[in-house]
């Protein structure tokens, strides 16, 4: 084999064996093995009574440190302080909860899924690094037929704007601590090439699982590459694949010919199982040159040879069908059509693409390898379904979920009027004067407020109910691959967060792992005890973030009729589960109604990887304007003297009027459209 290596034509770009020496390939394999081990550890930690979020965030707390230390015998601290005793009790409670068969089942299923995924990756990698022969054959084959322009492309290794960019993001490194590897010392270009090769290799499993995405983030961090490089490459690869797929379908006869080719093992191993590992045998030089041209033209700039790219991509590089499946062409589209399917269960449910037009499919240049779904919680006008999500950047396909417009509008307007009411103004002062917010939980709400509560209580419980149902529908859509084989990030505020909560619980129930990448819940009206959060954690591969505000009185007020004894996630930290990020935005979010206008700023604070800064600025402007207006109104109200009863009546009228207005508007729009 050594002799063959020498003969290899040099002008065909690089494959893994040329960009990496044997030793480096070993390093790569070990790196992947180590990273996946770290990821697995994180999963088991979720179900470990000894690991809590708190420990992570307050390592200085001596109590927590003790828990951290396995050498400290808990039993030996019998005469500890009250705090220690509490902690011990909490720990015991966690252990009890965790030993419940339901939890154990979930843990087992999560681990099983993860192990399967890992096996697929490692086998695929093993196949690539261990069969240079196949790639060589393919390269020789390709050198005859490969389109000249693809060759040209591969030789000019254009890596855009890599001069004045920091070596690695601090955020990336804190979130995904680098695993030490000798590969770090490779030249930067080579590391980028390697990252790109890994992306293609992971895609060759015919699905971009959320775990795969997290693995890539770990790799980026370990190679000390900044996040945007991975993001840029994802975009490029998405374009390349779609472009290639177009050409593939255009040349059906070529495909037919390759089918007739006896050497083609394609249909034999075809779309085979074992996590895609079986796919590889096929790439042995057959349809590759055709697609390689297309992929090479688009992705040549990344520096990987066209044929190598095709080789790494496996079956993905050969079949438009598989590419289509990756982008969700068959699983049900992420557009309005889904409605009909689910219309019976939920009145109103649709994915609206934020980029491009509402009325047709997103254009190929807007397609991405990942997607983000933003879910609004309450609205005062139809546009509110979309506006908050404008702040999301272009590295993923952004959709807004339109659901239950009427219920959301009603909730929005009634909440607005309650907050603007004199009763709330009085109550707020009262609430603030009481130091313990917790007492509110136990029904000690100011009387005046309770009198106006009926305005908002009903819309809230209706919307909560609908959110739970719509969450099931969303889960179903995800399981049916409406998004294709791509990882999904879910972001929602208020009742929208409730929808996500319901969706994730359903995903966990149905053991649908590897679909969701990140989840951000803002002001979520859902329980804060650990069992549901553990379940949610199990289906989220990346970050699970609970954004809470201790000053969100209205959320506490609204939620009082639900299971308040389990706490409210939107008001407090989730302490008992490891791997949940708690973000305190008390200083930003003075009330529930603020959330909508703060989506961008909050995402910025979280360190969300992909935001549109100009949109965030605009959001902030809007908020400032609103605050001014509110102040003016408040001043006006101070003067007037009406009883809470009268006010409630007036508000009800007002709400009805506004809701009708919005719905009319919507109807009018529909008319105009058709």
């Amino acid at each position, binding site marked *: *084999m*050594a*002799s063959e290596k020498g003969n290899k034509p040099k002008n065909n770009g690089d494959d893994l064996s040329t960009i990496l020496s*044997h030793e480096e*390939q*070993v390093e790569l*394999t*070990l790196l992947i*093995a*180590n990273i996946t*081990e770290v990821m697995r550890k994180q999963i088991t930690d979720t179900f470990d009574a000894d690991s809590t979020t708190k420990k992570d965030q307050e390592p200085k707390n001596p109590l927590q440190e003790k828990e951290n230390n396995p050498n400290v015998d808990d039993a030996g601290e019998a005469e500890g302080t009250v705090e220690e005793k509490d902690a011990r009790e909490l720990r015991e409670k966690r252990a009890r909860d965790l030993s419940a068969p339901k939890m154990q089942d979930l843990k087992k299923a999560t681990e*099983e899924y993860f*192990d*399967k995924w*890992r*096996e*697929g990756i*490692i*086998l695929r*990698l*093993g*196949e690539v*690094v*261990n*069969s240079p022969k196949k790639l060589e054959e393919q390269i020789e084959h390709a050198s005859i037929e490969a389109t000249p322009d693809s060759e040209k492309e591969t030789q000019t290794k254009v890596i855009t704007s890599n001069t004045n960019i920091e070596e690695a993001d601090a955020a990336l490194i804190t979130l995904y601590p680098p695993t030490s590897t000798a590969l770090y010392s490779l030249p930067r270009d080579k590391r980028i090439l390697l990252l790109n090769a890994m992306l293609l290799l992971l895609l060759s499993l*015919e*699905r971009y699982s959320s775990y795969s995405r997290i693995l890539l983030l770990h790799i980026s961090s370990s190679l000390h590459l900044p996040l945007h490089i991975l993001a840029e490459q994802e975009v490029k690869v998405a374009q390349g694949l779609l472009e290639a797929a177009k050409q593939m379908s255009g040349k059906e006869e070529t495909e037919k010919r390759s089918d007739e080719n006896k050497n083609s093992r394609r*249909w*034999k*191993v*075809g*779309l*085979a*199982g*074992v*996590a*895609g*590992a*079986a796919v*590889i*045998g096929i790439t042995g030089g057959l349809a590759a040159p055709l697609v390689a041209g297309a992929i090479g033209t688009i992705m040549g700039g990344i520096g990987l040879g066209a044929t190598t790219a095709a080789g790494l991509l496996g079956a993905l590089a050969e079949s438009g069908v598989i590419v289509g499946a990756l982008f969700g062409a068959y699983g049900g589209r992420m557009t309005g059509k889904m409605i009909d399917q689910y219309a019976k269960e939920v009145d109103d449910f649709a994915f609206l693409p934020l980029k491009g037009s509402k009325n047709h499919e997103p254009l190929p240049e807007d397609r991405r390898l990942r997607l983000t779904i933003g879910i609004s919680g309450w609205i005062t006008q139809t546009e509110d379904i979309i506006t908050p999500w404008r702040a999301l950047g272009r590295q993923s396909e952004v959709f807004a979920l339109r659901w239950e417009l009427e219920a959301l509008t009603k909730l929005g307007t009634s909440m607005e009027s309650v907050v603007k009411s004199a009763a709330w103004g009085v109550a707020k002062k009262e609430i603030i004067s009481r130091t313990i917010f917790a007492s509110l939980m136990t029904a000690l709400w100011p009387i005046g407020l309770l009198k106006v509560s009926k305005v908002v209580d009903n819309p809230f419980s209706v919307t909560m109910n609908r959110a739970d149902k719509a969450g099931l529908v969303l889960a179903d859509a995800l399981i049916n691959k409406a998004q294709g084989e791509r990882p999904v990030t879910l972001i929602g505020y208020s009742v929208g967060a409730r929808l996500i909560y319901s969706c994730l619980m359903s995903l966990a129930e149905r053991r649908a792992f590897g679909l969701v990448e990140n989840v951000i819940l803002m002001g979520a009206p859902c329980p804060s005890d650990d069992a549901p959060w553990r379940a949610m954690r199990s289906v989220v591969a990346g970050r699970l973030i609970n954004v809470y505000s201790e000053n969100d009185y209205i959320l506490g007020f609204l939620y009082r009729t639900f299971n308040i004894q389990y706490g409210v996630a939107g008001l407090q930290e989730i302490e008992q589960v490891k791997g949940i990020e708690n973000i305190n935005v008390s200083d930003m979010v003075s009330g529930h109604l603020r959330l909508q206008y703060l989506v961008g700023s909050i995402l910025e604070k979280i360190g969300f990887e992909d935001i549109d800064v100009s949109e965030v600025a605009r959001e902030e402007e809007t908020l400032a304007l609103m605050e001014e207006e509110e102040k003016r109104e408040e001043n006006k109200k101070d003067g007037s003297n009406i009883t809470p009863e009268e006010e409630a009546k007036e508000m009800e009228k007002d709400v009805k009027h506004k809701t009708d207005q919005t719905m009319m508007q919507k109807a009018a729009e529909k008319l105009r459209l058709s």
Partner: protein
Amino acid sequence: MASDESLPTLKILMIGPSGSGKSALLIRYCDNQFDNESSTATIGVDFKLKRLSVHGQPYRLNLLDTAGQERFRTLSTSYYRGAAGIILVYDISSRESFNSMERWFEECESNMMEGAKMYLVGGKLDKVQGAGGEAKRKVSEEEGRRLAERWGTVGFMECSAKTGEGVKAAFAECVEGIVKDGGLVAAGGRGRGTVSVAGAEEVDSGCAC
């Protein structure tokens, strides 16, 4: 293709010390080739598919060729999941390789799934054949057989990847040993993805009873 996909699938793992000839054995078995010069050590794990009929029943074999090198040992535990059979390979011309088998059997026993079968292979038979070859033999066939019996494997075979002698027989015997009592055969699935899912469930229920 459909028929192939729906076949019952057996996952078989090949382990053993570095340089004992696992990869050569696999390439001989699957591609009927032998590369005299090749001496690259396997990285991580390699993977091949093969179809095999035993008593008229076709099976799909997922053959995993693992790296023998120590540095990959951290990886190895993950391979055992779902493996119905483990083929342990040593080099009959190397005493050292045979002596390490004890450790490999131990690793295997502690990691393999309940109901999985072991099979012992002594490789590089060609080296001890021909004129003066016997001198190169460092492990007698009897020793190999005794080791296999002691660990309760379903069989033992000496073979050569270079000449092909005994290779097919060894794999066939191993598969026969696995399927004899219905062991850990994963049913075939229809679509991709579902294959492995269905497979794992099958395996689990197999364990329980």
